[in-house]
């Protein structure tokens, strides 16, 4: 018991891809939790079906082997079994579809008014983030570029091709609106832990609404081929406690743009 507790308490939630990873990264938003749960639910039945079908298949191959059973039975009709094996498999997709669509449409829905809007603008090959809620003129005051740190400049502990120089700082447990758009070619803003993958289409603003439930650093990558350096376009979202968000924004971002 103690061993288990110790084990579970020390496992840090995984918010970046790891080598040979199977399955999703740990959920940081209710949406991702929903996706993971749906995946697990479907997989339970998927494995039942797999076992059942494999059993039939193997059994048929075994028993109808040409040496063992040179003259097979010549039954070609069986109304009951035919009805069953038609109706039953057509009900199963329905039971998969209902929760799946419920989840899909709930992701689109913006239920609560968001508290902040962040614009994630894709460029070849960096991202610009705009925090414009505090602007009093058309001059952008809180805008910064986020470049992936080149392999040679990585510090110990940083993830290769994932770490960026300027992270997106967001408040945790707050409804966020993220406006995704590129300035040149299509990009995609994807953060697996948040359950977000939103294509950035030129001339169009796509909105995603997330609410990060725990503080942490979440990693993602560009998910739409956007040119030569597609692989070097990362996303890092840093969720900080809400009370720290204001100071992070005012301290970190304003002096930076003040210099520029």
């Amino acid at each position, binding site marked *: 018991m103690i061993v288990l507790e110790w084990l579970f308490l020390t496992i840090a939630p995984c918010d970046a891809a790891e080598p040979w990873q199977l399955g999703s990264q740990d959920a940081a938003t209710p949406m991702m939790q929903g996706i993971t749960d749906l995946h697990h639910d479907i997989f339970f039945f998927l494995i039942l079906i797999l076992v059942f079908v494999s059993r039939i298949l193997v059994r048929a191959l075994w028993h109808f082997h040409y040496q063992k059973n040179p003259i097979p039975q010549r039954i070609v009709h069986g109304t009951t079994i035919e009805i069953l094996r038609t109706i039953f498999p057509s009900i199963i997709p329905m039971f998969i579809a209902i929760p799946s669509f419920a989840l899909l449409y709930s992701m689109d829905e913006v239920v609560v*008014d968001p*508290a902040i809007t962040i614009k994630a603008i894709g460029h070849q090959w960096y991202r610009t983030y705009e925090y414009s*809620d505090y*602007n009093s003129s058309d001059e952008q005051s809180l*805008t910064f570029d986020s470049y992936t740190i080149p392999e040679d400049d990585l510090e110990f502990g940083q993830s290769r091709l994932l770490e960026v120089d300027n992270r997106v700082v967001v408040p945790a447990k*707050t409804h966020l609106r993220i406006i995704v758009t590129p*300035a040149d070619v299509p990009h995609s803003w994807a953060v697996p832990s948040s359950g977000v993958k939103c294509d950035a289409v030129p001339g169009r*603003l*796509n909105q995603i609404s997330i609410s990060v439930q725990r503080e942490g650093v979440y990693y993602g990558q560009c998910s739409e081929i956007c040119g030569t350096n597609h692989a070097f376009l990362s996303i890092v979202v840093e969720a900080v406690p809400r009370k720290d968000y204001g100071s992070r924004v005012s301290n970190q971002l304003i002096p930076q743009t003040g210099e520029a």
Partner: protein
Amino acid sequence: MAEPQSDKTPTLSEHYHLKEKEKPDAGTKSVEVKEVEKPVNAASDEVLETAPADFRFPTTNQTRHCFTRYIEYHRCIAAKGEGAAECDKFSKYYRALCPGEWVDRWNEQRENGTFPGPL
């Protein structure tokens, strides 16, 4: 005739046609355009506030939301005069929604008189 239709499908022209008719009496216009003032859900010490979710733009695609807010702001200051306090809200909304690059381009187009929207 056109009004109930435009309520359902607010294509841009219909949408603004509707407002243009209501424009003379500025009181009703601002009531129509304004969303119900929601209590700021960040009632804590720092105020986190942004453009609210708009029932006219319920989808992922918010392009027109940004464009509409931009136009609403400029129509507002055209009606109420530069720097009218009622229009600040719209400026906040469009700045929150539109990429800075787009706003700059539209401002330029307005100066040149080539802005494509109904101002």
